[in-house]
């Protein structure tokens, strides 16, 4: 209490003291070190204050969460030696957590998880009012015996039944481009399905009509010229595919720009390139961790994809809770990548491309191989060994014996002998099923030759 208008010494120090404390507290609270990544992104505690980022669909009122839940890789549990089934309880928990934290977009298809994905999703979403989430599914008629009008219609109608809904927010023509124009015409035009779906949109049973793309750019260009109003398009986009798409894939840069030119919202799939951008070689990991020590390697790929302004949602197949939590951290809200960041990611893309990796995303569309080969298993082992440096090239290498042993024993551990690459007969049935259009028999042959040279200790001999 001041008697005159002067502050006595006691008060002065008191004020100074509390001011110091207050400013320290504020300084601490506003310290630049405390970014949204300052705590390890595996706990939920700090998420409570974070808010999921949403993007506005330019054609409707929809506010779609930038993180979309992909339902192709649902959690499974073992029920017998060779059979696995969807672990519904775990899935329910994952959906609950994601809904709680603001995810409202769920993407599925009638063929995912051996046909069980849609109904598993419906069960998980049962407790929520229908208007709290967006459902997306697809016309997945990949096999020629489903091209007929009746077959396609029954796939369409079955989706509604499985999802227990009378409208679908986002409906896709699935994997347009595989098989080129010929196949596209057979699947959608000759049987009148394209017209049918547009009518369904008019009737309100489909709210947004679009397509997902893999493969032949001619189909892509054709669809953009048809004059049909597309509400969205789903493309494969990540910092490798942006300018260095492999195999039959088209550079995402081209696809994205063409779509943005026409004001069509873009949805992103394979932001992690099938998981290959979630775990990488030692040096690349260091680069990423140097910039953000407590951010996951995967977060960079998501930030890259989500930084593009015309992206409506980035789909991620989060099988494990820790991945969901990490993504929630990344997207609440998304911290865009800077020019510098992009340069670093380009460098890393270059390093990854230098490795003779096989561009398999383990989507398992190729399975089952009629002759029993475990295609994703063989590729996964091979890729893993390359990334971890278990890939001796010369007998004179320092650790040749150890690496050889690690490669061969690891091979037998991951893939049963009868399902290994040397049993691939090259029938080619898998090639047309692969969305990445990997030359599977060719890669099998390449891996087999390498294994043979390792076994016979003839590494130094070239062909």
């Amino acid at each position, binding site marked *: 209490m001041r008697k005159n208008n002067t502050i006595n010494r006691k008060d002065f120090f008191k004020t100074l003291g509390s001011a110091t404390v207050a400013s320290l507290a504020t300084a601490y609270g506003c310290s630049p070190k405390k970014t949204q990544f300052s705590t390890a992104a595996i706990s939920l505690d700090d998420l409570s204050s974070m808010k999921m980022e949403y993007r506005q669909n330019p054609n409707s009122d929809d506010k779609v969460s930038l993180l979309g839940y992909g339902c*192709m*890789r649902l959690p499974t549990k*073992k029920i017998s*030696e*060779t*059979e*696995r089934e969807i672990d519904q309880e775990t899935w329910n928990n994952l959906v609950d957590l994601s809904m709680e934290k603001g995810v409202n977009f769920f993407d599925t298809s009638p063929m*995912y*998880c*051996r046909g069980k994905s849609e109904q598993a999703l419906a069960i998980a979403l049962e407790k929520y009012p229908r208007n709290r989430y967006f459902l997306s599914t697809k016309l997945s008629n990949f096999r020629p015996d489903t091209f007929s009008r009746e077959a396609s219609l029954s796939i369409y109608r079955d989706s509604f039944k499985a999802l227990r809904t009378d409208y679908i927010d986002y409906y896709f023509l699935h994997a347009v481009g595989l098989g080129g124009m010929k196949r596209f015409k057979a699947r959608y035009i000759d049987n009148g399905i394209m017209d049918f779906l547009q009518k369904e949109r008019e009737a309100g049973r489909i709210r947004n009509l679009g397509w997902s793309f893999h493969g032949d750019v001619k189909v892509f260009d054709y669809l953009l010229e048809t004059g049909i109003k597309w509400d969205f398009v789903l493309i494969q986009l990540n910092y490798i595919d942006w300018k260095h798409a492999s195999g039959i894939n088209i550079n995402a840069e081209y696809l994205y720009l063409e779509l943005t030119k026409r004001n069509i919202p873009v949805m992103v799939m394979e932001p992690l390139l099938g998981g290959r951008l979630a775990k990488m070689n030692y040096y690349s990991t260091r680069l990423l961790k140097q910039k953000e020590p407590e951010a996951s390697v995967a977060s960079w790929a998501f930030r890259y994809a989500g930084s593009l302004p015309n992206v409506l949602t980035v789909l991620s197949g989060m099988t494990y809770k820790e991945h969901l939590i990490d993504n929630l951290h990344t997207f609440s809200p998304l911290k865009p990548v800077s020019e510098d960041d992009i340069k670093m990611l380009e460098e890393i893309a270059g390093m990854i491309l230098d490795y003779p990796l096989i561009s398999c995303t383990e989507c*398992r*569309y*190729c*399975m*089952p*191989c*009629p*002759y*029993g080969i*475990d295609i*994703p*298993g063989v590729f996964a082992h091979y890729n893993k060994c390359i990334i971890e440096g278990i890939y001796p090239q010369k007998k004179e290498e320092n650790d040749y014996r*150890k690496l050889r*042993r*690690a490669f061969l*024993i*690891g091979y*037998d*551990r*991951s*893939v*049963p*002998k*009868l*399902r290994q690459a*040397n*049993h*691939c*007969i*090259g*029938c*080619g*049935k898998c090639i047309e099923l692969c969305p990445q259009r990997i030359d599977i028999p060719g890669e099998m*042959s390449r891996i087999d030759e390498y294994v043979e040279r390792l*076994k*016979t*200790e*003839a590494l130094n001999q070239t062909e």
Partner: protein
Amino acid sequence: MGLAVASITILTLLFLDFSATIHACLGWMTRLQFIPAVLSFSVGIIIFLIVFTLLFGRVYCSVICPLGILQDFISWFRARVKKNRFSYSKPLIGLRYTMLVVTLAAIIFGLASFVAFFDPYGAYGRIASSLFAPVYQWGNNVLAYFSERAGSYAFYNVDIWMKSVSALLVAAGTLVVIALLSWRNGRIYCNTICPVGTLLGVLSRFSIFKLVIDVEKCIGCNLCVRNCKSSCININEKKVDYSRCVMCMDCIETCKFEAMRYVYSFKKATQRLTEKENASSRENTSRRVFLSSVGLLAVSGILEAQEKVAEGGLAVIEDKKIPKRDTPVKPPGSQSLRNFSSHCTACGLCVSICPNQVLRPSSDLMHFLQPEMSYEKGYCRPECIKCAAVCPTGAIHEISAVEKSALKIGTAVWIRENCVVITDGVNCNNCARHCPAEAIQMLPIEPDNPKSKKIPVIDAERCIGCGACENLCPARPFSAVYVEGIENHRAI
């Protein structure tokens, strides 16, 4: 004796060690065995063993022969409960010498399969590879399981499979019979049936170092008789039957009066020993220390299922059936069917060592239990020459990998009705692609049609019979390509 324990341990390990690591330095122990030495006509070893027996008696039977050491172990085990259970018995001369003559005749006429039955090394080998090896492999697989969990490559999983029902039954039967005989009567097999025992017995009768009973000290208590496994001490006449004594030295140990001695002696057995001999002989006797032999891990192994189920599922793979071959396929190095069948003692060492699961005992009566090859589990890989390296009888001669690459042991045969190109209408060239001899080419079914599917054609003059085609052919359960054996192997 420590030596005996070491001997049987090493010999057993030679059959168990599927990685063939110890064979490099210790493989010679199999070549020291008598019948293998005879079959491979290793003059040096035969002479050595003969001289050794002429000097020291049938020490071979207690220290080198694994079946003998096994019987000693069983006998010792029994003796812990029922002590002093033996008694003197007269030799069964007729049976012994008949067995010896018959065995010699079989060797001369090349019927090694018959010899194999009574060869103690062969018998033990079959027991080790059919009965002990799976247990060892179980133990290994348990270690491999934990090794995998720990991210270590120190141990790897091996396939445990029954290579031959008949071999298993014969081995089990042999073990039961031997166990029963030694449980009741010590070394009765060695002195009535075993041709090696009988032959060495002929020599040991004249051995320079003998067991001698000191009549002055012997009071006739019969303790030595009751502990003599070979039932060969005739205490009434104070004589030891040297042709049956296996030099186990149990009698020396049990005699409380030091009346049994192992001495240099050209004289008759019952002669009184001089003071000097008394003194020196005391130094010769030694206490035996019994060490436990190979501890078998009785671990119930868990074969880790390595089936991973994919989202899209994994196709079921049927087992391949073993094709009926007109001529069996025998390992490279065996030179000819005749050489192999007249030298192989069916010990199963090569079967245990084959890393590709190709060798297995035959159930064909003419070559009973002698190994043959089949390719449904693996094929005879070009860089592997393990079977040739370990064979002690010369049934499989040693060869180098280079020699093997041009050594023909069989010919591949294509079966049109089974080929998936025909039955499934798919492109396949797995046989041609993996043939190390480049003996298979793919040619179009319709030469004028550029889109024609291709079928394999086999050049019999280039094929070496390694079985890569049979193993990697996708047609199941009946392979579309399989290997027929040839009677005489040749270089091509």
